[in-house]
Every structure is written in C-alpha cells, then in structure tokens.
C-alpha cells in the first residue's frame, strides 16, 4: 500500500511539474462551460439543474482523457525509465494502480474546479443537490474508465501519438455502442440479446442514468469493472512487451 502512495505522489507531482495538468484543467473548464452554456442552452432551458453540463462529459472525455493518459507508459518506455521502475522493489500492478489513481485525481480536481457552475445554478434556482453530487460521482467514475483505456493503450507503444489515437478510437466505440446509429445497424438482423449486450457496453447509457441523479450500484460497478479490466489488460501488455 505504501508503495502505491509513493508512486502515486511522484506521478501526481509530475503532472504539475510539466504543464500537462494545467493545460488539461484549463481546457476542460473552458470547454465544459462552452458546451453547457452555448450548445446545451443552460439558461434557455429555464431549469435549475446541471444536465446540459453533464451531458457533454462523455464527448469531452473522449479527447481529453486519452491526452492525459497517453504519456503514462509511453514515456517510461521511451526514456527507458521503465527499466528503472521495474527493477525497484515494487510490483508492476502497484505501478499501474498508482498511475491510474494519479491521473484520476487530476481528473477529479478538474471536476471539482467546475464548482462555480454549481454555485451559479444554486444562485439562480434551487436544484436538487443530491442529483448533482450523484452526477459528479458518475462523471468521475466514467472518467476513470476512459482513463484505464488510455493507460492500456499507452502500455502498447512508445509513441504517445499512437497511444492517443488508439485510445480515442477504443473510447469512441465504448461511447457510441449505445447510440441509435450503432444499434440500428444491429437491429435489422441481430437477436435482441446481442443488441442488449452491445447497448449495455455503452458508457452513454450507464452515464445518462447517473447524470439524472440515479446512482445504481450496477452503473458504478460497470465503470469500475471496465476500469479494472483495462488496467489488467495493460498489466498483461506491460509484462509481455516491456523490453521493446
């Protein structure tokens, strides 16, 4: 446990030693506000909730989270520091968990820093703050799942750009698998069971419920499971390919 804490601290600090974290947080705050106010018609709806803000999160994460995840293993491989890390008395899974938690904390920090929006909506009306907290929690868990995909892709290659593109593609599949475009393609021929399975993989359908304030254990559990599965896949990849 203490090993994870030490590694976590190092990873977290390195986000702030380089401008990565600042750029990420800045862009996240700007874009989420732009989406909420201009595209999500935050005012025009006349409702005291943050739904227009949360609805765009999957799409924001689609590009921003792979950007923050791409360096996690790629850079270690490229600089050779992976050799140093793996010959220290720590386990690979500890390094993996620490990398994920560190980036997840940065994402959490970005989410927390959107609090002015929450203040605004409380000033303008009286929203159900329970719903908002549930939505924040759901958004953070979803970000964690995106992050795990990005970290796994980063474990695949030395090149950050390739890691980024792969992560965006895989994340995109997970986001759209619940949308009508994809499901329509299946509807004409596939049995309901297949359609339901494809739909159940979707980040969107699991997140939508939580954005409306319904914290179902199976939605949180879903994101947690996705996170753990991708981190485990990353672990297998690192063990197989650490030398090249």
């Amino acid at each position, binding site marked *: 446990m203490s090993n994870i804490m030490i590694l976590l601290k*190092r990873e977290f600090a390195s986000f702030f030693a380089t401008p990565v974290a600042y750029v990420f947080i800045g862009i996240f705050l700007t874009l989420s506000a732009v989406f909420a106010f201009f595209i999500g018609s935050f005012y025009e709806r006349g409702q005291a909730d943050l739904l227009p803000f949360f609805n765009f999160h999957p799409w924001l994460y689609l590009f921003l989270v792979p950007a923050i995840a791409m360096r996690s293993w790629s850079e270690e491989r490229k600089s*050779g520091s992976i*050799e140093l890390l*793996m010959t220290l008395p720590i386990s690979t899974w500890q390094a993996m968990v620490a990398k994920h938690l560190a980036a997840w904390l940065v994402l959490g920090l970005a989410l927390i820093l959107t609090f002015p929006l929450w203040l605004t909506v409380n000033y303008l009306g009286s929203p159900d703050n329970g719903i908002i907290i549930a939505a924040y929690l759901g958004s953070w868990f979803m970000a964690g799942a995106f992050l795990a995909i990005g970290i796994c892709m980063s474990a695949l290659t030395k090149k950050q750009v390739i890691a980024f593109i792969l992560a965006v593609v895989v994340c995109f599949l997970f986001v759209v698998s619940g949308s009508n475009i994809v499901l329509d393609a299946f509807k004409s021929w596939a049995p309901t069971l297949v359609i339901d399975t494809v739909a159940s993989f979707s980040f969107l359908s699991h997140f939508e419920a939580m954005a409306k304030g319904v914290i179902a254990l199976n939605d949180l559990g879903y994101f947690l499971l996705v996170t753990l599965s991708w981190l485990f896949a990353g672990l297998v990849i690192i063990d197989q390919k650490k*030398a090249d």
Partner: protein
Amino acid sequence: MISVKNLKKSFSGVVAVDDLSFDIRPGEVVGFLGPNGAGKSTTMKMLTGFLEPSSGEISVFDLNLTDSPLAIKQKIGYLPEGAPAYGDMTPLQFLSFIAQVRGYKGREKNERIQQVIRQIELQEVLDKPIDNLSKGFKRRVGLAQALLHDPQILILDEPTDGLDPNQKHQVRELIKNLAKDKIVIISTHILEEVTAVCNRVMIIAKGQLQFDGTPNELNRQSKYFGAITLHFSYRADISGLAELDGVAEMQVDEESGAVTLFPEVDSQILHLVTAHVQRCKLPVDTLVVEQGRLDEVFRNITQREAK
C-alpha cells in the same frame, strides 16, 4: 552469491543470450566485455529481474529470481544503460523518491541521501531538473540512485559512458572503494576499464561466454605479453637479439626502427636482453616491457567462430 545456470534469452527467434552459466561470489568485481549487441545488457536485464529468461535459472543468495523477485530487487542496485531517470524531477526529488521506494523514512532517509550526494558529488546540481543536466551529471544521478541503499549487489551497465577522463577516474575510484564484500558487475567496451577496476573478466560474444578469468590471465593471452620493445638512438647491429635463448620471434618496425622481441611461452627474457644490450653496447634509448595488448586479445576472442 549469484548463480546462473544455462541462461538463454531469445527475442522473436533471435538468440541474444545462449546458454550462459557462471557463479559470482562476494568480493568479485566482474567486468562484462563484448562487442555491441553481444548480449551483455540482456544478461544484466535478466539478472536484475527486468527481463524473464527464455530458459535457465538465476538465483541470488540462494533465492530464486522467479520465486522471490522483490526480495532480490531489494539487494540489487542497478544502473540501466543510458542512465534513465525521471527528467522532470530534480536530483534531490528523484533520490528522495528512490529512497522512499527502498523503504527509507525520516532521518535515515535524509542521511542516506546526503551520504550518496557527498559520495557522487552532486551538490551543485541538486535543484536543477534532470532533463537540463549534462550527460556526465545524468550518469552520476543514475549512479547515486543505484548506490543509495548500499546494495550488496551492484550492476552497472556502462557506468562511464559519456564521462570525461576526470569523471571516469572518479567513478572507477568509487567502484574500487566499495566495501570488499560486495558483488559488482559492470559492462563496458572500454578495455582499460577492466584492468583498472575489475578482478574478473567475462567476455561475451554472440550470447556466449568466450572467456572467464582475471585481467592478468586475459593479458597473458596476448602475443605481446612479456614482449620487449627496444628503440635505438642510431642504427646498430641487432642480429644477435633474435638468437637469444627464449626469444621466439623478432619484429622490426621499418619506419621507427623499433625492435620487438617476443618471448617463448612462459619464459622471461628481460634479463637476457639487458645483458646482451650491455655486452654489445647497443645504443638503446627506450626499453618497454609490454603488458599485453588487450585490443588484440579482444579481437581474437570475439571474432573467432562461436563454439
């Protein structure tokens, strides 16, 4: 003690290390010599547990590397090739991170860090990001990291690569002054380094062990070991030199006029040569007893057909 049995490693069909077996005991400073791509680094990566062998066994102080990797990693200090580090950290932050991972806390941690900083002389760069340091300092940060926990086993992959002659000397002194009960393994392709710091040499070529012995034994393999080179101030009659007992062969360098006398195996010819020089009043201005030419031995060993 490190014990390696039938170690093999291949990367997608290409054999990098082919059936290596050796034991290394405390007190030995072993130099891995070999051409580039001979399998030195791969062997080191397997010893440190970074790579898993394709087959074969490694045990360290009677612990098996596959069964208890963490316990073994605690005992090893490792400088990987190119001395990688986290470039956005300063040496102080980096060493503090390594110390924590190595399990040091509080005052003990600070003492360890201060000691290694003094030992490696890193004082002037402590607060600069490692990315901005010169190649020499980067290498020294890597060394400091490997020495921090005063490991029983020190594995250094090309520790003096990229250092200037003063820094090389300093690193070699450092290695020599380590406690005498440690195991030190260094890899290098600088031949003098081996005679300067090691008490055992292993030459690896094409993934196989081609030579295992002391630096002195390596020197003895040279045709030039014990040979005597004479230089004359003016032309003189040198015919008698070749006829001396124990002289196997005489070579004359046309350009400089220097004469090299090669001894027969296991014979000393110095006293015979000096006696002859005095008797015939030869105008010798320099006389050199050769210690063996390592580059020649190295070429012979590494370029002969693999076993």
